[in-house]
């Protein structure tokens, strides 16, 4: 177990390192000079050069990268134009927003969490529930309805669903306010009403996928010998399905859910754009548009961290569910 964790964390670190290097290289090749973005009109060449020097953009690439990584681990001193000392984890200074990137992240990360976590709960409950029911009632109208639902959901686009929901609930019926983010600690009702459309549309699309997946898993499990054994013991159907079949069927669903949630935490770009909510994804998009290198780096890295951590967690979870899996 300990050995597994060490090995797994080592390979995760390696992956993250590779991601950071790749992103760094990719965005270093970004032709737009970040300094040009900082002073739009009245910059003379000398001033530009001075700022560039201050930012370390004239240093060799390796030195820049090393400085950046050092900042994350130990913090580092940035020029006075960038707010002086920057504590670990220092993600640099954004020339565009004029704030420390870590502050930006701290501001937008809760937004994305607020979108993803309730949505994930919703889509798992809905998707798995629907899949199970449809597997148990295979061939009935209920099953057909669920299949239709999941096929439709899998074929719909989030921005389209979002748009329709906005038209109906916000603009026409005026049941909900225009989507926005309020901290749950400030006003839980506003928090929920501002995000509920995002949850519903995300959950609708994802639950379609999960319904299909869990239906297939459940059907496969139902044909397993141990389910027959459970019935031969005289267990009532709810127990056979709930305790014996469900636990085995849910395992692969959990795996995929872990990875999906991990991916979504890195930024729900489309959702945030559709509903105009400034989360991690939207921040990343804005950063790319304005050539805000430190913010791009930070968002990409955070997204990668979520994916990699989700991978490790899923492995652990799998071992917790299935006693046959030995971590080593």
């Amino acid at each position, binding site marked *: 177990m300990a050995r597994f964790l060490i090995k797994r964390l080592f390979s995760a670190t390696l992956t993250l390192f590779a991601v950071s290097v790749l992103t760094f290289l990719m965005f270093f090749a970004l032709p737009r000079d970040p300094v040009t973005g900082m002073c739009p009109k009245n910059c003379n060449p000398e001033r530009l050069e001075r700022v560039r020097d201050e930012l370390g953009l004239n240093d060799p690439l390796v030195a820049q990268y090393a400085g950046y990584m050092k900042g994350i681990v130990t913090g580092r001193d940035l020029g006075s134009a960038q707010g002086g000392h920057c504590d670990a984890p220092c993600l640099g200074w954004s020339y565009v927003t004029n704030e420390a990137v870590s502050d930006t992240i701290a501001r937008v990360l809760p937004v994305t969490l607020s979108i993803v976590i309730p949505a994930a709960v919703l889509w798992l409950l809905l998707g798995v529930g629907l899949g199970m029911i449809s597997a148990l009632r295979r061939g009935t109208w209920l099953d057909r309805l669920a299949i239709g639902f999941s096929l439709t959901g899998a074929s719909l686009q989030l921005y389209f669903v979002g748009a329709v929901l906005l038209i109906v609930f916000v603009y026409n019926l005026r049941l909900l306010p225009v989507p926005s983010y309020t901290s749950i600690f400030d006003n839980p009702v506003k928090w929920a009403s501002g995000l509920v459309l995002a949850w519903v549309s995300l959950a609708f699309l994802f639950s379609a996928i999960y319904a299909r997946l869990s239906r297939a898993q459940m059907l496969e499990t139902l044909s*397993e*010998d*141990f389910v027959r*054994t*459970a019935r*031969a*013991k*005289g*267990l*009532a159907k709810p127990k056979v399905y709930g305790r014996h079949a469900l636990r085995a069927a849910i395992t692969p669903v959990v795996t995929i859910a872990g990875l999906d949630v991990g991916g979504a935490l890195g930024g729900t770009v489309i959702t945030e754009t559709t509903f105009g909510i400034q989360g991690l994804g939207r921040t990343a998009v804005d950063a790319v548009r304005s050539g805000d290198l430190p913010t791009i780096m930070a968002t990409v890295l955070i997204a990668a961290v979520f994916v990699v951590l989700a991978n490790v967690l899923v492995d652990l979870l799998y071992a917790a569910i299935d006693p046959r899996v030995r971590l080593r």
Partner: protein
Amino acid sequence: MDRPESAPSGQPGDRPSVPEQRANGDPYLRVRDLRVRFDTTDGVVRAVDGVSFAVERGRTLGIVGESGSGKSVTSLAVLGLHDARRATITGEIFLGGRQLVGLPEEEVRQLRGRDMAMIFQDPLSALHPYYTVGKQIAEAYRVHHPRAGKREARQRAVDMLGRVGIPQPARRFDQHPHEFSGGMRQRAMIAMALVNDPDLLIADEPTTALDVTVQAQILDLLADLQAEFHSAIIMITHDLGVVSQVADDVLVMYGGRAVEHGSVEQVLRRPQHPYTWGLLSSVPSLHGDADADLVPIRGNPPSLINLPSGCAFHPRCRYADRNGDRSRTEVPALSPTGEAGHLVACHLAAEERVRLYREEIAHVGVAR
């Protein structure tokens, strides 16, 4: 069609181990004219087509057949494990005097695991991989003893594990199936089946997945437990050797129908159906002339979706021509032979069968 109205009984003195059953003679399980039909996309499949048999407490019925003979379908029908939406079951299944066909699912469920239990071929896939062996056994106990506490169920499960020959049962209780060896898993499976002391135990190829030395242990164990618990056992197998070792009565199935039925002595020593002859003469044996050719049955086992007309065995039968077209057109009824309790479904005349066996079969195969 002739039906065995009384339980086919072995010759007196066949098995002296079960004396009192012979006296009261009321079989615990009596199946009459059982038919199981599946409607598939390829047409109607008559997986079991009019099978009758009976088993008394303390006795063992061996059901023999190849793949597709309907032997497993029969046993699942007895337990009521077929999906009612897909399988149509007709006929009579009397368990301890109660007709199971048509009984509400809930009532059948109450009987499953308590009055009748089953062990399966592959214990690794038949046990739930995520739960400990002990938990699964305790669960089987608690279903039918709702008032039993956790501790009582655990104690009962540990006792059963010990009874089936698993050492250190208290420690083994908390292990998962994958931590058991193949033979131990089958023992655990047996412990689970017997935890409620059922009167009927159905064993579906319980030793096929096991090594031969372990198979011997398991067969011994079943015999011991039967002597102790006095349950009726149905042993489903393709292996005539296993049947000869454990069965009191034998039912030979082919293409979903019973072709021969009688005491083990009658079926294996004085068989009257050409299919049984074929099985016996094609089994490799440890005795006799090793250099002589085996005498196989020609052709292949039939598909239940496309069963030959008339006698299902006729395309493979060496004697089918002796009855003109009858073999092809008419399904032979399971009729009594000269001996009490011995039934055969064959168009050949009884005297001819006896003669054929003596002259052509008895000197080859197992009897040689």
